[in-house]
């Protein structure tokens, strides 16, 4: 489904440049659960951002279901994210002073879903992460684990093809982390492709395939049997 060919990412001007990604080649099949690991500064986040179209490569080709993503305009990339991707962040990134269900509804607003259907779908999404009884709570009234579950609900409410997760357990304790990973694994089993960045082996073990990045190069690949 996803194919990266010769992806390079260079920051800065030609005189003082730093290469973050060097000739990355990668194929991800539909339904895979991919973890990207590596020390900080290895380029794993940049790789995830490129896959999530929040960033663009300096050179190389990114194909998604026969679409050349690198040739898309800024607006087209927005639409690409809107229809095909869901995002989960380390810091949850929920809107403050906005109820859980309103947060989950937000992507549906951009999809142009009618208010009533939006409410129903958001409620279903919250239910799928076990938070239907917290729908009217604002993020500040929820624990970290609950906030991340709301964020997951927001990411999957649009039925995306791919979930992009940037250190989804980075701000959580061990038991909450496992809770979140089990939820993600569940969604993966139901067919959503997940690409996740983490630096914890234990978290990466939930993925079916672990990519190790070092100094901008894809070093090795490990397949986990589940």
């Amino acid at each position: 489904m996803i194919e990266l060919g010769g992806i390079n990412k260079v920051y800065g001007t030609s005189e003082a440049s730093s290469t973050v990604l060097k000739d990355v080649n990668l194929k991800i099949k539909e339904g895979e659960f991919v973890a990207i690991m590596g020390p900080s500064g290895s380029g794993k986040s940049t790789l995830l951002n490129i896959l999530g179209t929040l960033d663009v490569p300096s050179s190389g080709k990114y194909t998604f279901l026969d679409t050349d993503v690198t040739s898309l305009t800024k607006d087209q990339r927005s639409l690409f994210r809107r229809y095909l991707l869901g995002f989960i962040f380390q810091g949850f990134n929920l809107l403050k002073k906005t109820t859980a269900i309103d947060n989950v509804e937000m992507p549906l607003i951009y999809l142009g879903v009618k208010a009533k259907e939006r409410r129903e779908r958001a409620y279903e999404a919250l239910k799928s992460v076990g938070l239907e009884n917290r729908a009217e709570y604002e993020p500040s009234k929820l624990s970290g684990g609950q906030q991340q579950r709301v964020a997951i609900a927001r990411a999957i409410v649009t039925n995306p093809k791919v979930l992009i997760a940037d250190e989804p357990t980075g701000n959580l304790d061990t038991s909450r982390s496992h809770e979140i990973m089990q939820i993600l694994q569940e969604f993966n089993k139901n067919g959503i492709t997940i690409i996740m960045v983490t630096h914890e082996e234990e978290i990466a073990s939930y993925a079916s395939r672990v990519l190790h990045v070092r100094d901008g190069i894809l070093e090795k690949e490990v397949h986990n049997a589940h």
Partner: protein
Amino acid sequence: MLINAFLQALREIRRNLMRSLLTAMGIVIGIASVIAMVNIGKGASLSITNSISKLGSNILFLTPGQQHGPGGQSAVAIPFKTKDVDLLRESITALEAISAVESSTMTALYGDQNYQTSIKGIENDYFKIQEFSFHEGRDFTNNELRSGLNSCVLGKTVVDKLFIKGEDPIGKKLRLQKFSCEVVGVLNPKGANTFGMDQDDVILVPLKMFLRRISGNDNVHLIMVKVKENIPLEEATVQISQLIHERRHLKADEEDNFSVRNMSALLDTISQITGMLTIMLGAVAAISLIVGGIGIMNIMLVSVTERTREIGIRMAIGAMPQDILIQFLIEAIVLSGLGGIVGVIFGISITMVVSHFMHFTLIIDPTITIISLLFSMLIGIVFGIIPARKASNMNPIDALRYE
């Protein structure tokens, strides 16, 4: 999308209620002043026009000197003489009534009451010109006029101030500084005129008496003339002007050193002055609108910075730059539009209060109301575009990392 942006904007305004209210205040003040200014101005000029046409548009005022624009008086202002008035009365057939009017302010005494009022020396035609009618008593006799006897006619206000309720003023003697006069008549009340002056606050005496006892010469500074119904005002004006021009031995091409004006000329002068005032006040209102707009821009810039992360989240979720632009633009428009609505309500309230106390006709012009509302929204667009563009130009990665 637009409805959601609107709802979102309302939510944001509610979230920072105090800040939003203060920000919108600039627009409220600006719009309220525009609305009040225009409506009161229109009401006032309608009231003036009405009362002038009620007074009779066929009245001419002769005054010494020439007026050059509002407030400007020529240096040479030679007063008229009583003989001028007599000549006009005899020579010009177009006149229905003519009276010289000399006035001064004096304290009138009766018993232990004293009251400062306006004294006017007049001729009997004055009652006709001003459409005064008598509550009791009579106007002046020929004898009183010719020999300047000490008799006087009182307005209702003067009667109320000097006499005990129920006391009949007719035949009583008032003291006016160095001389006294006998009351021969009391006028029916007319109330305040267009300029808010009480027309019943007056003591009328024969012109001759005024000239002899008060001014000590036969100078006349105002002649009021009522032109016959079927004669055009312009024709009478020309006849009068020519007569005085010749009588003053002015050359044919020389400028008149007196003026003959009618109420509509007076109205022109008034509307010139009020027009100038309206423009000045309008400019002040416009400045306050600009200041209000800058306030909105300032707060929107703060808001964009505060919500950088939110912008990043929205972009990651799939908002296009234009969605972000519209969201912030609508927020600015809603903010200024709400200010506009409140401003209209304030402006109309001010108009109602002022019109009530100043006795103006109450006019609420729907056009200016709609224009003001649209204008307030335009301010939102103009001053909201910079913050909105700043928001929409953000890079999602940087915005998401913003602390």
